């Protein structure tokens, strides 16, 4: 990718409408949503063929929490943010990991990605 500030982004989200809209927002921002999955086994496989710069992961996947997967992302130094409808206090033990609160605006998504990749947010 020619643009230094355009990133490949992985999405873990089990709500299809939210995943589709998030992809659209990222696309509008000039990023590329390389893959969206809705369950943890699929997320694990995606991590094995890592082809993304950062990840946006939902906390609650049909009753299962994604914290174990989040630890693997940390182990592999993948920048990521939690996307959740829960309040920030529900996410414990992940100091420094940004949280994108649902419902979110495109601007909030831009800020989160910039924070993850430590660049200025794109408009």
């Amino acid at each position, binding site marked *: 990718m020619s643009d230094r500030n355009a990133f490949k982004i992985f999405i873990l*989200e*089990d709500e*299809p*409408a939210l*995943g*589709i809209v998030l992809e659209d927002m990222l696309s509008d921002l000039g990023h590329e949503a390389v893959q*969206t*999955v*809705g*369950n*943890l*086994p*699929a997320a694990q496989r995606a991590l094995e063929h890592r082809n993304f710069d950062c990840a946006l992961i939902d906390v609650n*996947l*049909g*009753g299962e929490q994604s914290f174990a997967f989040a630890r693997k992302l940390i182990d592999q130094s993948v920048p990521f943010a939690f996307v959740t409808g829960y309040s920030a206090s529900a996410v414990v033990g992940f100091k420094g990991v940004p949280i994108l609160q649902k419902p979110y605006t495109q601007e909030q998504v831009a800020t989160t990605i910039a924070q993850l990749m430590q660049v200025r947010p794109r408009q």
Partner: protein
Amino acid sequence: MAKKFPEFTTLGPRHTWLVFLSLLAIASVGVVILLAKIGHDTQLSITARMDKIAAVAQLLSSVKDAETGERGYLVTRKPEYLEPYNSALKRLPGQYRNTRALFVSEPERLGKVDYMISLSERKIRGLGVALRIAREKGFDAAANATLDGTGRRTMDLLRISTTELIIAERNDQATELRHLGVWQTAFYAVAVFLILVTSGLLIAALLQSLQTVEAVRKDAEGKSLLLQEVLEYSPDLIFVKDREGRYSHANKATLSVMNRTSAIGLRDSDLYPEAVAKAISNNDAQAFHAPAAITYEESLIPAGSKLRRYYLTTKVAIRDKAGAIVGLLGISKDISERREAEEKQQLMINELNHRVKNTLAVLHSVALQSFKGVDAAKMASFEGRLQSMSAAHDILTRHSWSGARLRDIAQASLSPFCGSDLSRCSIAGPDVELTPSAALAIAMVFHELSTNAAKYGSLSVEDGRVLVEWNLSGNPPQLDIKWQELGGPAPVKPSRIGFGTKLIQRSFGYDPNASVSIDYAPGGLTCTISLSKFAPEKDRDVGS
């Protein structure tokens, strides 16, 4: 509560005494046996000395008999007077052997016996010589030979040595008798001592065992007291009823519910309103005949209170050693607070579900207002989706969000498009219970397929129909759903994947084994869906 529970104490110093007395008793038994043996030996020896004296005296007597016979013959010259001589001669060899044998253990005395025997033999020889002279040279010659005094001297020597031997034996006998007296006295003394020691031992052992029994009794008493306290002060209601339902035991918690100081002999019907007592006694009757404990939920309004309390009561029949039922043990836990909390939680969940519905309605109004006059078609599409979601929520809320039936979801999703009597679609499949996630996803997919059919597919023409079928197979079960459009125009595969198609394809992203395929066949669009995560876990609590 400063109750003192006695402890078992060991009896150290007394043990040492017991060991000492036991050793003494064993030693005494040894001494008694030894003394008895010595006494017995001495007695045997004394008896043996009588035999010895008799043997020696008889030996002398035989020699005298021989002499008497010889003299009688020589004087009377009649052969029958020789009889004592002949019989003595026959007796003597046996008497020699017998006497020697008696003295064989005493070499010094045996020497004297041998001397006696040699004197006796000499005397007998002398007598024999006199008789031969009488036969060969006549009786007068024999009388002269006898009168030379040799025979008399031998006889005197024999008499003296016999007397000496008898006196010696008598002396020994006397000594032994004296000793025997001493041994016997000692025997009796030690025996008495042994009896005393044994008695002491028995008494000590008895005392000790009495003390042990006492200690064990106190220990048991303490434990039973502790158990009683535990039962008595347990926050749970613990009670026992007899076969006729009369209370034979009720702890403090039970009595406080009854608002009484004692319940012994009372029945539930004496304590509670008829309906409550009847419910309790029905449970009792069942528990009485059950092979194991049964737990019931019971409720009552305690005496002197206005609030109903709920109890989880475990009841089990009490049997005697022979296995006959003698009563019923009950333990009731007050679960009123827990029940209240659960009810509150359920209320909150219900409230939350209604708020979700409310939020959807608010969202609808806000959208209507915000996009007024912008694009009527898009607005209708939005409203349709929102309504489909809302309908699925309704079904789930009716079942407290524990799940929903696939048939209900299909009917709710299709009814806006197939007519309220669903005359334009056919829905067929076994009863399938769905998780809330599966129910919402399937509702969403059916809605998208229906709107598409209404716009471009079989529902866009008068005679078009939709078939929805599903079946279950395998273990763990797989759910296969088929959407089939019939009688509509041939579908056209869209050049660009729209939001609706994306929704259909991704709705089951939560299920790692899900597959969705859309086929734009000329006869009508078909969509097949396979799911593995759709059934609620049976033992999962509502709202967890």
